C-alpha cells in the first residue's frame, strides 16, 4: 500500500469512526491500558487480542510506552480520577492493594472459581493477585530477576572456563574480561537497572532472610548494618566493571553489547532472553543464563498482571462485563500462556504446563521456581515493584542510582541515607 492510498484509508476510517463505535457497544468492548510495547512484548499482547476477538469481543488497545510504565500509570490515575477507568490495566504487586483499597477494582470470583485458579497458581502468586481475599487481577507471567547472562564466546576469548558461582569468581571473571579488552559487565545507567544490580547483591551477600528484612520489613538495623556497608562496597566494585558511558542507556542496548561480543556479561531479568531470541541465538549454546553468583536456590520474581476495573456507569453493560471476564479467562489458558511467555522470556504462572516447549533457560527457571517455592525462598523483586510501595521503592532508587553515578560516594553512609529516605517516604 503506498502512502497516498494509506492516507485515503486513514481518512475514510476516521469518518467511519462513529459507526464502528456504535457497533462495538453491542458486542462488548474491553479496553486495556498497558506498556507492553517493545517487539516481543507487543507480539505477545497481540496474541491476547486475537484470542479475545475470536470470542467475538472488541479489543481496544491503549498502549503507553515510556519510563517503565510511569507514563501509563499517569494515564491510569487521571482516568481513574475522572471516573473513566479502562476495563483492564497492567498493574502489579503491592499496587494492586492500593487500587483495591480505593474500591476501584472489580472482583473476579466467578471466573477464578470456574477455572480453578487457586489450584493452578502457586500460593505466593495467588496471594499477590487478591485484595481482601478476592481475586482482582489475573497474573500473566513470572519473570526471574536474579539472572546473569553470559556470552561464552567472549568468556573463552578471555580465558575463563566456567560461569561464576560466587562473587569472588564474578570479580575474577570481570578482571580477566577487562584484561582481554572487553567491557566486563554491560549495563544501562537507569534507576531501575542500577537497583536490579543492587538487589541482587543484597540477596547474594545478606541471603534470603536479609533480603526479606531489608526490603519487606524495611528493618532499620538491617538497612544501616555492617552487611549493608558490604553490599554498597560491592556495588561500587561491580560498578567498576561497567563502562563509563552507561547513563540513560536502555537495557536492551546493553544486552546487544553482550550479544555482539563487545561485553561479557549482563545482570538482568529473563526478559533479556527476548533480545537473544530476536538475534537468533540459542539458549545454552550461544548464551548462558545462570543465577546471579551467590543467589543459587533463591528466586526473585517479577509478576505482570492485568487488574480488572469496575466499569463506569456508561460502560457498565453486560457485553462489556462479559468481555472483561473473557480477558481474565483467556489470560490463564494454556494457549495464551505458552505463546506469551515464550515471547516474553518468562515462565507460565500455571504449574500444570508442559515445559518441554521452552528453552533451557525457561526450563531451569520453572524448576528453580518450584524448588524455591517449596523452600520459602521466593523473593519479591524490589527493583520491579513487587516488594514495597512505589514511594519506598522510589526512595531506594534515589539513593542507589545516586550512589552509582557519584564516583566519590561513601559506602559507609549510603545505608543510613537509604534508611532515612525510606522513613521519609513511608
Amino acid at each position: 500500500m503506498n502512502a497516498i492510498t494509506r492516507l485515503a484509508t486513514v481518512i475514510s476510517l476516521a469518518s467511519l469512526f462513529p459507526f464502528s463505535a456504535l457497533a462495538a457497544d453491542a458486542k462488548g468492548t474491553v479496553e486495556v491500558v498497558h506498556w507492553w510495547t517493545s517487539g516481543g512484548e507487543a507480539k505477545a499482547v497481540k496474541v491476547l487480542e486475537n484470542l479475545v476477538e475470536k470470542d467475538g469481543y472488541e479489543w481496544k488497545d491503549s498502549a503507553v510506552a515510556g519510563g517503565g510504565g510511569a507514563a501509563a500509570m499517569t494515564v491510569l490515575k487521571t482516568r481513574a480520577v475522572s471516573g473513566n477507568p479502562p476495563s483492564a490495566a497492567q498493574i502489579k504487586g503491592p499496587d494492586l492493594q492500593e487500587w483495591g483499597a480505593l474500591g476501584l477494582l472489580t472482583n473476579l470470583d466467578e471466573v477464578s472459581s470456574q477455572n480453578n485458579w487457586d489450584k493452578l497458581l502457586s500460593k505466593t502468586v495467588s496471594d499477590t493477585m487478591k485484595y481482601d481475599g478476592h481475586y482482582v487481577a489475573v497474573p500473566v507471567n513470572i519473570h526471574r530477576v536474579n539472572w546473569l547472562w553470559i556470552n561464552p564466546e567472549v568468556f573463552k576469548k578471555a580465558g575463563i572456563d566456567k560461569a561464576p558461582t560466587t562473587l569472588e569468581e564474578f570479580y575474577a571473571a570481570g578482571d580477566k574480561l577487562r584484561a582481554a579488552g572487553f567491557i566486563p559487565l554491560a549495563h544501562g545507567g537507569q534507576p531501575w537497572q542500577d537497583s536490579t544490580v543492587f538487589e541482587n547483591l543484597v540477596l547474594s551477600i545478606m541471603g534470603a532472610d536479609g533480603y526479606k528484612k531489608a526490603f519487606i520489613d524495611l528493618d532499620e538495623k538491617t538497612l544501616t548494618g555492617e552487611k549493608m556497608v558490604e553490599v554498597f562496597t560491592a556495588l561500587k566494585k561491580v560498578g567498576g566493571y561497567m563502562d563509563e558511558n552507561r547513563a540513560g542507556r536502555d537495557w536492551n542496548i546493553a544486552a546487544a553489547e553482550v550479544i555482539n561480543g563487545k561485553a561479557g556479561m549482563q545482570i538482568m531479568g529473563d526478559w533479556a532472553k527476548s533480545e537473544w531470541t530476536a538475534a537468533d541465538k540459542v539458549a545454552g549454546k550461544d548464551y548462558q543464563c545462570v543465577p546471579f553468583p551467590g543467589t543459587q536456590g533463591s528466586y526473585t520474581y517479577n509478576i505482570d498482571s492485568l487488574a480488572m476495573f469496575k466499569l463506569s456507569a456508561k460502560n457498565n453493560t453486560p457485553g462489556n462485563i462479559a468481555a472483561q471476564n473473557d480477558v481474565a479467562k483467556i489470560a490463564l489458558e494454556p494457549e495464551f500462556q505458552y505463546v506469551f511467555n515464550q515471547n516474553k522470556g518468562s515462565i507460565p504462572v500455571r504449574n500444570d504446563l508442559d515445559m518441554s516447549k521452552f528453552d533451557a533457560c525457561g526450563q531451569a527457571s520453572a524448576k528453580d521456581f518450584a524448588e524455591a517455592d517449596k523452600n520459602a525462598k521466593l523473593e519479591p523483586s524490589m527493583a520491579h515493584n513487587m516488594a514495597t510501595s512505589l514511594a519506598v521503592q522510589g526512595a531506594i532508587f534515589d539513593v542507589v542510582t545516586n550512589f552509582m553515578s557519584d564516583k566519590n560516594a561513601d559506602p559507609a553512609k549510603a545505608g543510613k541515607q537509604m534508611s532515612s529516605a525510606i522513613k521519609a517516604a513511608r
Partner: protein
Amino acid sequence: MSNQLGKPALSLSRVAIYATLLLAAAVYLIPLVVMLLTSFKSPEDIRTGNLLSWPQVIDGIGWIKAWDTVGGYFWNSVKITVPAVLISTFIGAMNGYVLSMWRFRGSQLFFGLLLFGCFLPFQTVLLPASFTVGKLGLANTTTGLVLVHVVYGLAFTTLFFRNYYVSIPDALVKAARLDGAGFFTIFGRILLPMSVPIIMVCLIWQFTQIWNDFLFGVVFASGDAQPITVALNNLVNTSTGAKEYNVDMAAAMIAGLPTLLVYIFAGKYFLRGLTSGAVKG
C-alpha cells in the same frame, strides 16, 4: 536603523560579521542536518559512519517504517490543532479587545490573573483538569484535548492581542463610539482589519504550542486519540532489539515537519507581527 549606517563597504569588519553569522547558521543547522542524514541511513551505516557522514546508500526504509507507526496519529494532531488554534485565537482577540478598549472595574486585575497563567506549570492542574474532562465525558477524545488546549492557551492569546491593541490610539475607538458604532462593529470595522500581523503571530505561536504539546496529549488522550508527539515518544522510548535510530529520526522529522514548514514559510509574518507591537512590554 540599518538604513542609516551608510553604504556597506567590503571592509574587514564586514567580512568578520558575515563569517560570524554563517558560522552561527552552521551551528544552528547541524542538529537538523544530522537528523535528516541519520533518517536516510541504514542501521549498519549509522554504526560505522559518523554524524555528518553522507549515507552510503540513500535508504527510505526508515521513513516508511516511521510513517507506518506514527502516520495515523498525524491526523489526530491535525484534528486537535486546527480547531484549538482557531478557537483560542478568536477568544484571545475578543479578550484582548475588551481588556484594552473597554476596560472596566476589575478588568486589570483579571488581566494580571490571566498573565500569571502564562507561567503556570501545567502539572499543577493535571489531576483536577482530568477530573473535569472526565465529568464532561470527553476523556480520551480529540474534542477533550481541543478543550484543554483552548483553556490553557487563553493566557498567551489574550496577552498577544491585549498588548497589540493597547498600542492603538484610544481616539480611534472613542470617535467611532461617538458615531454610535457598537461593540462588535468597532471590532469588525476598525480593529480587525488592523490585526493581521498579530493574528499571524498568535496563529503561529498557538499552532507550535499545541502541535508540540506532549503532557496534555499523553494524559488526556492515550490510545486511539493520541497526538503524534505521544506516538513519537512511544516509538523512541521503546526499543526492539537493535535501536533503529533511522526510524526514530524519521519519525521525529515527520512530527516536526508541519511546524517547521510554518516557520519557514510564515516566519516573516511572525517577525512582522513581532515588529508591530507584540513585543512591546
